[in-house]
């Protein structure tokens, strides 16, 4: 993902760093927020969202050395979000020592042992957060050599770090490296951690909402998000209106047929549950023959109505199904309208 100054308008305007709250001041995100995203903060909803088991991220953190992670950095580039290996690479890149609200005690235990290799990640963090992504890769190589220059920074924050690494075993803490010219008291650290969390989630939102990648500035991005949500809500209303204006018999009965068909497909058996429905006999037969064809083809978990509306599905489900399914869709789509013609 491109980490260049998307919010450069804000961070590059010469305003000195100040402790402002909320979404107002954004700079390029640091590392720990990705871990917090990955781990279940809100009871599984978010990991379900990201489809990334937290333990795998931990493994990746330990297994990847700095060199390998740098090698993978080149490939991260401008890839789209919804692919797990890329997210895991990113999690490895932005390594974190510990996390908040960690229900899994193992993770905080493991991360203490990995404090040494992750130091390299942490030290390269400030470089990344201040510069663009592609430049940061080269700079990381430089930073490793120039680590002596950062002794000053290290000394100022070693006390905090040693204290926090001690507390690591007892409590899950968020570790944030203080940058040059930054206040190191607890309030500003907490503020900064919070801001980085917000930044990370804003990035996720940007990837989700189409057309937000190009926009710079928080306010405009938020505008786009609001518009998108409103348009989705309006679409739901429109669709429910259309469905209601269709013959009521069809919309309610069609759904019951779908329900039973879904159930029978889930079981893998093809029983006559459709017989019990109050629907003309012909439709049941056509549905059955349609689904019979469907069953013989690859995976049964595939949603039974894949072939039903080929233009719609082709548009929206291209990411879910590979090319081998397209032929399936075309074949079935031509089948169904003919059958429906028969009974109506």
């Amino acid at each position, binding site marked *: 993902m491109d980490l260049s100054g998307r919010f450069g308008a804000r961070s590059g305007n010469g305003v000195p760093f100040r402790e*402002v709250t909320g979404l107002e001041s954004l700079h390029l995100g640091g590392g720990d927020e990705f871990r917090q995203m990955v781990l279940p903060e809100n009871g599984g909803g978010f990991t379900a969202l990201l489809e990334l088991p937290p333990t795998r991220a931990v493994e990746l953190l330990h297994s990847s050395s700095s060199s390998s992670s740098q090698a993978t950095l080149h490939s991260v580039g401008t890839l789209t979000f919804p692919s797990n290996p890329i997210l895991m690479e990113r999690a490895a890149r932005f390594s974190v020592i510990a996390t908040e609200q960690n229900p899994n005690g193992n993770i905080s235990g493991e991360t203490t042992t990995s404090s040494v290799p992750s130091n390299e990640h942490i030290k390269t963090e400030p470089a990344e957060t201040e510069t663009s992504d592609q430049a940061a890769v080269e700079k990381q190589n430089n930073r490793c050599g120039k680590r002596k220059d950062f002794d000053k920074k290290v000394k100022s924050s070693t006390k905090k770090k040693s204290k926090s690494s001690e507390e690591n075993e007892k409590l899950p803490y968020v570790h944030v490296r203080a940058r040059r010219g930054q206040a190191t008291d607890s309030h500003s650290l907490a503020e900064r951690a919070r801001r980085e969390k917000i930044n990370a989630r804003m990035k996720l939102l940007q990837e989700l909402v189409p057309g937000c990648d190009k926009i710079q500035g928080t306010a405009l991005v938020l505008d786009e998000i609001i518009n*998108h*949500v409103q348009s989705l809500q309006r679409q739901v209303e429109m*669709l429910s209106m259309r469905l209601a204006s269709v013959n*009521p018999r*069809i*919309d309610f009965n069609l759904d*019951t047929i779908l329900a039973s068909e*879904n159930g029978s497909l889930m079981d893998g058996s093809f029983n006559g549950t459709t017989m019990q429905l109050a629907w003309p006999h012909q439709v049941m037969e056509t549905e059955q023959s349609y689904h019979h064809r469907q069953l013989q083809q690859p995976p049964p978990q595939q949603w039974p109505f894949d072939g039903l509306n080929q233009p719609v599905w082709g548009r929206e489900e291209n990411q879910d199904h590979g090319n081998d399914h397209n032929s399936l869709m075309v074949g079935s789509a031509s089948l169904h309208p003919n059958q*429906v013609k028969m009974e109506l």
Partner: protein
Amino acid sequence: MQPTSSMKEEFLKKWQMGLQIYRPLIDNTSVSERRKAIKLSADVAMASLRRGTTCWSRALIQKTATEDNFLVRQMLSGIKAETLMNKKLPKVMCHRKIVRRSKKILMRRKSKSVSEEIAAKARKLVKRKTQGLRNVVPGGEFMNNDVLLIQETLDYIVSLQTQVNVMRSIVDAAEAGIER
């Protein structure tokens, strides 16, 4: 993050379950009533997918409960009966007004440089936008935490997308069936 097939299937099943509750009332001939029934059952189905883990789902269920208590109770089948009783008062709203007023008084005293003024205006703009986002997302008024707000928005957008996809395919199927 795009909606997955399993999410769509679950949503479809729950939605149909909700629609079947309306099935004996199929004689409510008015289009608007049917539309309302469809939309409400779709909303509750979408919210129940999250099983009360997210703030917006709880708020959405509460909202539909005010319109059709029976439907919600049936659809959730008593698992989450307590969420119906759970009412959060928007008491925070009063605080915000007082805070805003006192801030205005304080702002008058300070003299600002140009760059500070620009930053302050930008911050105000962002605050207004976040308030707008809170108005759109169900239950947003209770999310004073910005992190939580964005998280909820993410989840809400994905759920809305599944809802739209499923409904659109059903509508297309139904309309295609009619035309032929």
